[in-house]
């Protein structure tokens, strides 16, 4: 017995010796999954996590206000002011003076021209965001040291121009001298170097990146908006949500970014933690291929919309971590239409009857293997059975599903869609632009894939260039009203972005496109 007591005492003693050190107070540690991160080459970054890092390290010409109301108001960034020519095609940006890159070099018109032309020349996948309106590098010109003009190929609204130029990535402003210093004969734009380093002017400097391990950012003392309150930010790769939660509760991380809804529910109201929730700008949606005979009838499409039990999906499957959003311009985005559906089986059955499908029909629904898709599909199967539609759910990997979906070979799909940038044009074009279902179509996105020839394609094109914000808003609302009345989509909900912090963290605001979250204003109470 005595031997056991000695053993226990030694064990506890060793445990004490092996105890863990405390996290320094001026260091902010974020637990986040790094899985999607490819690298930090601004011209290539497209994934959210990469964009989040660029947001801290680089500046762009214009910014948006932070938080849930983000993207409602444009605020100056590196450009102090701007104006557009009478024909609406030439935008002149007046740059802020005295802004420094992390190298100490000055941010000027040469840097802006160099950066945008660099992205346009490199032409990596996300460049379409800029290229759709500025296809040619020569359309970006220096006027003088602090003035730049950008010419667009069509008239576009101010909000849209700001959404494009505020996109952190292809429109981030890089330091030409630093890029050129690391250019090689094989790699004249120094993409390899920029993949792992930064050449920005943002509030933080990318100090260290160890793949699938950590990203270390250090405060840039000469940042033009002032020195950040936090000296160092460590974004630690913790892919497993349960491990993230344990680390947060132990105080080893200050912010947990990828907790599951039930974990967030557990921490809600617990002393020592704050939960930040923002409706995201992505949503789960069901799409019907109009090329499949029963769905060619608009009444059948309407019947499906009225047959779904939206609340059951939001409450039971999404565990309350989603908000109602039944149109493709999400809540909070300019031009959002307050349009909601609910389950009305009487109405749905009546529509089926009017369509001549009183006896129902069979349909195959394709969806992804990962949660929550199979569960949502099961609920939809149950709901549609009530109006006579026999749904066969086929679950497949996303890559497999996309191949079928892109080839217009599905009957029904359940997937997700998210806004690429902060303007309704990013939503209206894919959901409502389709003048033909053949290979010659101009935009081969969701309307095309679902073989839905939209009657509002011209409105979609017109809205892009409408200079009057009020008229533009009306146009987008009208597009939604038409497409959600007769189109092939059932938009189910917007999931909530849920971020949990220790209560020492102050000033964190998460916008609906979470990768626009700024760490600049965050501080930690001592």
């Amino acid at each position, binding site marked *: 017995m005595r031997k056991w007591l000695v053993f226990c005492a030694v064990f506890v003693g060793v445990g004490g010796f092996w105890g863990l050190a405390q996290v320094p107070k001026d260091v902010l540690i974020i637990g986040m999954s790094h899985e999607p991160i490819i690298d930090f080459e601004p011209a290539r970054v497209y994934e959210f996590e990469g964009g989040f890092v660029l947001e801290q390290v680089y500046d762009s010409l214009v910014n948006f206000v932070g938080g849930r109301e983000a993207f409602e108001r444009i605020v100056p960034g590196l450009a102090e002011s701007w104006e557009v020519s009478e024909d609406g095609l030439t935008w002149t940006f007046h740059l802020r003076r005295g802004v420094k890159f992390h190298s100490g070099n000055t941010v000027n018109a040469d840097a802006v021209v160099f950066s945008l032309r660099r992205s346009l020349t490199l032409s990596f996948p996300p460049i379409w965001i800029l290229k759709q309106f500025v296809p040619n590098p020569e359309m970006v010109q220096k006027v003088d040291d602090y003035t730049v003009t950008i010419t667009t190929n069509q008239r576009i609204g101010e909000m849209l121009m700001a959404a494009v130029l505020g996109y952190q990535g292809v429109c981030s402003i890089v330091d030409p001298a630093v890029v050129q210093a690391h250019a090689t004969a094989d790699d004249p734009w120094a993409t390899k170097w920029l993949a792992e380093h930064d050449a920005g002017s943002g509030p933080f400097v990318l100090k260290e990146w160890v*793949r699938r*391990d950590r990203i270390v950012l250090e405060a840039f003392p000469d940042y033009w908006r002032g020195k950040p309150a936090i000296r160092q930010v460590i974004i630690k790769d913790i892919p497993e949500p349960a491990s993230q939660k344990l680390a947060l509760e132990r105080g080893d991380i200050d912010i947990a970014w990828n907790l599951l809804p039930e974990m967030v529910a557990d921490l809600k109201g617990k002393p020592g933690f704050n939960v930040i929730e923002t409706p995201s700008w992505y949503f789960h949606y069901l799409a019907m291929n109009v090329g499949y005979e029963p769905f060619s009838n608009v009444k059948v499409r309407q019947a499906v919309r009225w047959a779904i039990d939206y609340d059951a999906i939001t409450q039971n499957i999404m565990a309350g971590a989603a908000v109602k959003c039944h149109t493709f311009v999400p809540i909070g985005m300019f031009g959002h239409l307050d349009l909601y559906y609910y389950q009305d089986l009487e109405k749905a059955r009546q529509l089926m009857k009017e369509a001549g499908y009183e006896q129902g029909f069979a349909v195959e629904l394709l969806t992804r293997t990962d949660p929550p898709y199979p569960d949502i599909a099961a609920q939809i199967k149950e709901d549609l059975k009530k109006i006579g539609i026999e749904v066969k759910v086929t679950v497949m990997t996303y890559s497999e599903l996309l191949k079928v979906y892109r080839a217009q070979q599905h009957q029904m799909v359940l997937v997700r869609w998210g806004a690429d940038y902060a303007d309704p044009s990013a939503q209206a074009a894919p959901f409502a632009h389709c003048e033909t279902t053949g290979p010659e179509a101009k935009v081969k996105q969701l309307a095309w894939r679902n073989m839905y020839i939209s009657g509002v394609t011209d409105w979609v094109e017109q809205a892009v260039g409408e200079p009057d914000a009020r008229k533009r808003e009306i146009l987008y609302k009208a597009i939604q009203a038409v497409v959600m009345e007769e189109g092939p989509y059932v938009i189910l909900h917007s999931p909530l972005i849920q971020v949990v912090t220790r209560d020492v963290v102050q000033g964190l605001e998460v916008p609906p496109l979470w990768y626009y979250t700024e760490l600049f204003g965050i501080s930690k109470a001592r």
Partner: protein
Amino acid sequence: MLAYLARRLVWMVFVLLGVMTMVFFISRVIPADPVAALLGGQAPPELVEKLKAKWDLDKPLFRQYVIYLARLVRGDLGLSIASGRPVMEDLAHYFPATFELATAGTLLSLVFGVFLGVIAAVKRGRLWDHLSRVLALFGVSMPVFWSGLLLLLLFYYWLGWLPGGGQLPFYMTRPSRITGLILIDSLVSGRFDAFVAAVKHMVLPALVLSFFGTAAISRITRSSMLDVLGEEYVTTARAKGLREWAVIMKHAFKNAILPVITVVGVTYGRLLEGSVITETVFSWPGLGRYATNAFLALDFPAVVGSTMFIALLYAVTNLLVDLSYAYLNPKIRYA
């Protein structure tokens, strides 16, 4: 011996070629679109086509195979679709972390497994034997995800004795990368604080990884020891008046070790390919997560590259096991 080695190495090339060919064709005939998977559902179709051309996916299958083979001969495993880097660079980045963890896990399995196995054999039918059997059953049947989280909960969350995940404390700077092996790098660069921290961080994941190996090794050690303990030379040793400990370890265990080595080899090979679940639970930047993500994203250059690499690890481990037989048992000769 050398002729045997040369023959085995030549066979190894054929094994790798076979693995590569199989994985190459399987990864390309499955009905999915890797470029679409990479770009997601929102990418414009023209972009998908452009990238397909970049990865030769627009060419006939056999032509793709020949192109891949020609590159492989030059030691080029191609560019990963997901990371955009040479697959070889990715493997070199992720393997050291897995190597360290697998080695630590195997060593723990060996120590615990042999200890439990020998005790169970010597105390056959008694409490220690039953305990060892129960532990082995537990080790084989416990899901790693569950045991990992349980250990985290106990030693990290409740007791606070061991760190929660990763290779170093979140705020500690890494020693400069020399070999990629964090224990070696921290010693070489004189960072003893990092060395101690890295050892602490390795304890829990290595322990979790060792469960399965401990179970297998303890069972095989027990049965092998029981065979040997019944031999006449053991009785002779005892009759000579040798101490029981010397009889067990010097006479019996030495002769019982060959099957144990085989199991250790298999365990090590299995751990070297990386364990995605342990690596995920413990935020370990290893090969298992890399390879699994490559499979999920249909990043086929990475899939083929990492599968070949894992096959190579198995082949080398098996070869070493076979060679160790000759060392441990002088009766075995290779020709």
